[in-house]
């Protein structure tokens, strides 16, 4: 296991951790808007770290660039998704933001 592999393994573990954090966030957070926050966390950092980890061990620049392209598109769509859903939830279905009180 060369040092590069150690580094990429570390990135992969980090990515996995953030994906777990995102999923747990979506499960545990009390209302739509917090869950949106957790969702975009998975998109940005979770996937980002996995992409970097894989890019390191892919060994060819073309593959690394393609992985970054995938991540770039996910970033764009996640930014739009978060904004659109939040606006839709607020205006359309009127989901009230969580008022800070502890849910039963």
């Amino acid at each position, binding site marked *: 296991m060369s040092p590069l592999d150690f580094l990429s393994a570390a990135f992969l573990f980090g990515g996995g951790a953030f994906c777990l954090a995102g999923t747990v966030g979506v499960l545990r957070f009390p209302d739509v808007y917090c869950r949106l926050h957790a969702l975009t966390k998975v998109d940005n950092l979770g996937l980002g770290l996995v992409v970097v980890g894989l890019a390191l061990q892919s060994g060819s620049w073309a593959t690394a660039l393609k992985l970054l392209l995938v991540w770039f*598109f996910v970033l*764009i769509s996640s930014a*739009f998704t978060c*904004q*659109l859903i939040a*606006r839709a939830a607020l*205006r*359309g279905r009127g989901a009230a933001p969580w008022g800070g009180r502890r849910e039963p």
Partner: protein
Amino acid sequence: MDVLLDGVLALCLPLLAWLVLRTESLSQAVVLFVAFGLLSALGWARLEAPDIALVESAVGTGLTGALLMHTLSWTEETPPDIRARGRRRPWALLAVAASTLMLGWAVLALPADSPGLGPLVEARREESGVKHPVTAVLLNFRGYDTLLEIAVLLVAALGARAVNPRSERPTPDAGDDPLTGELFRMMMPALLLVAGYLVWVGDHGPGGAFQAGAILAGGGVVALLTMRMGPPRLSSWQVRWALLTGPMLFIGVAVAPLFTGRRLLELPRPYAGTLIFVVELALTVTIAMVLLMFFPGTRPPRAGAEGEP
């Protein structure tokens, strides 16, 4: 670890399918169905079928998800009286369980290592004019299937088009914010690029007309739902020509050998590859147009309003 991944994936596909059909609320069923489409795409990936994973991801998550999401607005949740009748009688469950066991028994009775027609395709792949075996089978060895399948697409589009009302005037829509306009403007070039790439790569790798057409249709759906484009109507000649150039080209290529004494769909060896590529390019437009016709969108409010959101 591989066995674990395959095992869990293969196990939760039917479970998820059962979940989709068991839930009462339609929105839950639609979202679970989108998740089911994703997991089946992973299944195709694990079964070393990248072409099918591509089509499943492009069509499954892109279009079927959007189409079903659209259905949420006009179908009510399952009315209670129907729900009661939905319970299955015990003997029916027994019969189904027995038949499923028989199917499983037949699966296990299949020879475990028959290579099927793989070696035969491999042996004659050079004659087909394309390097990727699946495209060779799809457009040359069994090109007749694909020709009829284009007819299936056209017929389904005709049926859906005839049924979707065209005369809907959109209400003045307050909800159309500039964000979706920006999204559309940013997404379309990327979609066109990837679609072109997939048609080109179909010659020597997974890809082809269906995948590219589905991606173009995805972009078209965004344009349709954000009022940038009206639904394709058969009455306008541009739509008709865009829809029918692909099939006409494919039929022309299929029928041409008959005039020189050869058989239907017998592509001339030297330029079979280019013919297939040209036909695929035209079919991409056809498939994108057909998949768009399944969407019941509305015409943009005023012709002048095309530019600003």
